[in-house]
Structure formats: C-alpha cells, structure tokens
C-alpha cells in the first residue's frame, strides 16, 4: 500500500493506519440546527484530486495526523506547517524545499515540498481529530 509519513514512526505502510477521513469543521453542537449537524455528519466534498485528510496510526504511535493526498494517484505529501496550528510552538524546524520531491511518491508527477508536518500535524490534529474519529 502507499507509505504515509508519520512524524513519530517514519514512513509506514498505510495498512498500519486507519483512514479517518476528510478534514471537516465541526459545528458547535450546542448551537447547530439538526440540518447543520447532519450536514456535518454526512456531507463530504469527495474530491477527485488533492484533499486534506486525517489518519490515525492504529498499529503504531496511535497519533492522529493530517496529510494531503491526491485521491486519484494516491500521492501523499505532508501538510505544510502553515496549514497546521501549533507548528511553531512544537519547534520542529523543517528543511528548505531543496530536498526535492519530498513526498511519498505516488504514481505520477512530483510531490510537494517537505515540511515539518508530522509532529506539528499531530499536535494540531489532536484537537479536532477526536470528534471526527
């Protein structure tokens, strides 16, 4: 299967993970209408292309983290620090883009730039992932 970049365990086969799904914003259950709540539960973008999604390292460090994946080629690239809150606080420095195609090569094309996504992603995702899990 594809390799997923778990910041803590390194690149691991996707069979070790559980696919949690598209990152969706959870409305406040106290104020959401039933229609809004059900839209959050059931509606998804289902894009044919790049999507940001959450994975859970079930057979490993058991952290939730986000990646960006192309749903047709299954190319995977870490979500950049700018997209994940708390990256600066985690203090993990990322290399410049000179590393070349840094993502887990899928089936076509080149991947994006490397980023200190894993650790920061885990820290950031922990806040929101629990609900969507």
């Amino acid at each position, binding site marked *: 299967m594809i*390799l997923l970049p778990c*910041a803590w365990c390194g690149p691991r086969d996707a069979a070790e993970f559980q696919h949690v799904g598209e990152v969706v914003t959870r409305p406040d259950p106290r104020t959401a209408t039933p229609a809004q709540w059900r839209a959050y539960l059931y509606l998804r973008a289902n894009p044919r292309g790049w999507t940001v999604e959450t994975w859970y390292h079930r057979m490993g460090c058991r952290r939730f983290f986000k990646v960006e994946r192309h749903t047709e080629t299954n190319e995977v690239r870490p979500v950049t620090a700018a997209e994940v809150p708390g990256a600066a606080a985690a203090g993990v420095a990322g290399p410049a883009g000179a590393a070349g195609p840094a993502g887990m090569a899928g089936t076509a094309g080149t991947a994006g730039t*490397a980023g200190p996504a894993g650790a920061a992603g885990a820290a950031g995702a922990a806040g929101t992932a629990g609900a969507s899990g």
Partner: protein
Amino acid sequence: MSARAAAQRRGSAPVAAMRLSPQPGEVIDRSRELSFSWNGVEYPAYHGDTIISALAAAGERVFSRSLKYHRPRGLLTAGFHDPGCMVQVGDEPNVRGAHRLVSGGMTVGSQNTWPSLRFDAKGVNRLAGRYLTAGFYYKTFMQPRALWPAYEGVLRRFVNAGSVSPDTAPGRPEQRYAHPDVLVAGGGPAGMAAAVAAARAGAHVMLVEEDHQLGGHLRWGGEAGLAALGELAAQVAAEPGIEVLTDAVVLGRYDGNWIAVLERGPGRPAAGAAAPGDSAGPVAAGPVAAGPVAASPVVASTERLVKARAKTLVVAPGLIERPYVFAGNDLPGVMLSTAVRRLINLYAVKPGERAVVLTANADGDAAVADLKRAGVDIVRVEDARLGGDVVAASGRGGVRAVEVADGTRILCDLLVTAVGWTAPTALLNASGDRPVYSARAARFFPDLARLSDDVLVTGGIAGDGGLAELTQHATAIGTEAARRAARIARARSLACPASAAAAASAAGTVGAVAAASSAEPGPVAIPGLPVDAHPELFAGRTHGMVDFSEDVSSKDLLGAVAEGYDSVELAKRFTTATMGPLQGKLETINAVAIVASATGQSIAETGTTTWRPPYAPVTLGALAGPAHQPVRYSPMQPWHEAHGAAPLVAGAWIRPDR
C-alpha cells in the same frame, strides 16, 4: 509421423530424434539424464530441458487442443507465455510447459482432451465453426427458460482447463520482504547493465529475471551474444550489492513502488518442511520431502512471493514477439522466430525438417541462419520488407504446406514468422504511463513524460539500437536510478523529522551515502535511443487466429465491430479476445490493429486494453502466504496447567475446562 508414433510402431520407447549436437550456449546438461511421462508414455530428457523442449526433441508437435474448436495446438513461442503448451503436472493444472523444467519422474498430461490428445472427440466442433462464431451464446439458449440450466451444463462441459482435486495438500509457502534501493525488472542485457551501474553507484539492487538464466536474447545471439553475456554476467557476479532472482517475475508495481515478485523455482522446501541441518520444525504446511530436500527426486515447484518496497524501479522487460494473423496460423509447426532460436540454441532441438520463413526484421534473418546451422532445409524465405508475405498454412494435425505471396504452394513442416514486437508496458501503465503508438516502429512506446519520478525505463521497450547503444543507455539509467533512490531516501527521512535520526542510522548503503554527502549529485544525462523503422504487419490477407487461447479469429473481431461492438474494449468483451491465460500478451496489438482497420481509425486513435496485475499468473497459495494461527493464553495458564486443567479451545484462546 511423430517420434512417438514411430516408436510405437517399432514397439519401443520414444527417443530424442530431433536433438542436435551440443550447441554453444545450450542450457541442458547432457550428463544428467532424466525421464518423465507424457500421457502415460515415458520420454527422455536432460536436466535443464523444459517439458516442451524435451517433447519437441522427441519429435512431438501437438501438445493441446484449443478451447472452442478443439484444434490441435503446438509450440508457438517456446517461452512461458505459449498458448498451446499448457499441461497438467500431477495435480497442478495449467502448467506452462515451455517454461517448467523437467524433473525426474514427473507425470505430465494434456488437458481437456478425450479420449486422447490425438483423437479428441470434441474436434467435431471444428465443423460447427461457421455457426459457433464469437458471442453466439448471446443469441440463443434463451427459450425455453427452464432449459437454461441444461444448456449451461453443456457449456461448462467444454471448459478447456485442468482440474482441481479436493485432495490437493494445502500449501502455504513463506513470503519474504525486501527493501532494495533499485529493483530492476528484466535480466536481459539492459537489465543487467542497469543493475551493475546502480550497484556501482552504491545502491542495493534486486535483479529479477523471468527465465531460468540471465541474458535475455543474448543467450541465442551466437558467439558475439554469448561473449557479451559472459562479460555482463561476470560484472553482475562481481557486485555484492546485486541480488539476482531468476525464474522469478515481477507481478505488479503497486502504488508507492510496492512491488510483488514471484519466485517460481524448485529447490526450497515448503514452509515448515525440514531442510538438511534444520532441527525438526512445526508440522509442514505443504508436502514434506522424504529425507533431505536436495536428494529428493521429485521437487514440486513452489511459488514464493517476495514483497519489495523499492525506492526506484527500472523497467527493462524487453519486447515480446507477435504472431502474424493468417489462415492456419495456429497449426502445430507454425512458430515465432524467437521460438526456433530458443529451441536450437538453448535446448539443441531441431524445430522441423523443411521450413518456410517470413521475416520482416533482423531477428527473423538471424533465425534463418540458426535454422541453416541446425540442418533445417530452408525452402523459401519471404522477406516482408521486399513485399513478401505468407497467405495461408494448411495441413491436418500440423503444417504440411504454405501458400506464399506469389501464389506458390510450398510443402514444408515448419513455418517461422518474424513480423514484429509488442511492448509489455504493464508495470509502466501501473505507474501512470499511457503508451504511445509509433507507426514508424509498428509498436507502442512508453510516454516518458508521464512516468512517475521513481520509475525508469531501459532496453528494447524504450528504443532500438545495437548492444553498445542499449548498454550505454541502461548504464545511465541504472546510475540515475541509484541517484533518485538516494534522494528519495533522504526526502522520506526529512518528511518525518522526529524519526529522521533513527532512519539515517538504520538506512543501508544509499542512506549512509546520502546522509554523508552534503552536495546532491545532479541528474545523469540519459542518451537517446534510435527508433528503427519496422513494417506494420499485423494481419495478412486471410482470416486467422488472433487469440489462440480463446479461439477468437480476425473474422470474429470484424463481426463484433460490424455488430456495434466497435471499440477495442467492447470487441474484447464480446469476443473474449485477450481474456485468456495470456491476458493479451500475444493478442492485444493484433486485435487493436484489426478493430482499427474495421472502424477506419488509426491504431493510435483506437488505443489498447488495459494491462492489469498480475503480469504472470500466481497461485492462491503463494499470494496467501503462511497461515499463522495465533494461540492465546491468559497469564494464569501456567497455574491452570500445574493444577491439571484440561484445555478448552475457545476460538484463539486456550481456557481451562473443569
């Protein structure tokens, strides 16, 4: 008459009447004689013979009957993918007889022939051919509905295949994981050169070759070919970083360069069976050899899966020769040029006595030379580059006469064709490639721009040229593959910063080299390869077989197009062309060309069907791997045992009973 018939007439066992004197580069070991049985009769063989080469050496020409019309079939390619050479070995159905090595005492039988291969009762279907066109069953058997199960029963009786026995011992061989930096698919000269170059650049290389030896077409390339082969083989052997797997085939390239390799050879015991020097292990999951495996007289072929996460993949599968479509092209005695060159050079077998050759390229010309050397009487050479052509072949049970372009009818027992090549792009398609047709070269080429960064191509599939040009290209590709592997290793560890330190220390040679060097080497310049002109020869002037396994003729394809199944996919599904055991390797391009001509479109516009894994068939046992049955004990188990509790099996748990 066949050697067997002659022998039976004499009242003696078959002899290898068609065996030639020792050939340079032959792979048989004449000092080790074996014997095996074919349809109940004992045949001689040498160690290194395949089932079919041994039978061909004894003069046998008919090995099976076709699916629908039960036409007699013989050798076409003499390689793994040979439609007429599927046989049953013991309880193993659908064995590729032109690839499987003979082992002493083997019991081989023809499939689906009754009462015998010679006098097959269903041969009567041939007379019904004009009525039983492809897809005929869609037009009938509809009424009355209650009779459909009975019709179905009749259709199922005509299944052309081997049988499964409920007593087959469950065999669950071990699987293996590998993490090569570079995996080279194809052990011909290009693959070998690429592997050597990658290893010299510091990569761990896995080199996978489908045949029993490395070398590809160099093995029948005469003195020059054998000398080049020796040189390359020495280079491969000198590199400790290359793991060579022969009689192994890359089944598929999956996302992320997750590659399945199937090792086929005999010689390793099934999971759990004792090997010399081992202490007795758990009960074998498969057949246990009596005594040390090395001395066992009959070693069943065990397939074993190797799962490799390669950083880069080099695809060097060469080219597959294509059959020509004309009346009688499926008769025993009609062969491709690679078949005769394999028979003569590898197995020292004379393919026939009197030959007509249709050649459109240098390999066909070389086949003529090989045939002459083997003492075959070359009655006529039709050069397609000068307007030569074969119109039809005829004969009962085998080729007896061939009609050529100028109308002459020539008596012969061997017809050799060399009309062109098919690019086996399976692994590339899985990597995002959409091959492009070149009318100049009359074949498809990979579209390099669409390839994933971690997949490279070299060898005949990428272009033409002499051995020197191809080797130079392959060397550049191998070096570049190693470079990209190092870059990927570096990038992966950087993408997971918390584990980067661990990754760097655990990485192999490439990782260490990558970590050590601060400056990244630039991309290697890959030289271009020429594309030679080749006449476009797919179908001749008469209707012939396109899919030998499925008994689909060019007439069937034209009929399908006329009925509205006018794309290659619809025509394929309606006629079942390319849906047989070869999965299109010999059929697809001819089918595409015929559909294109019927619809008035070009081959490029028509496109092809999709290559899908596995590239070669793989047993369920090899895929499944060992069946690990976990057993679970609670922490109190020692106490239970000490107090004499009887075990209660509760699913995977062992609990105390009483």
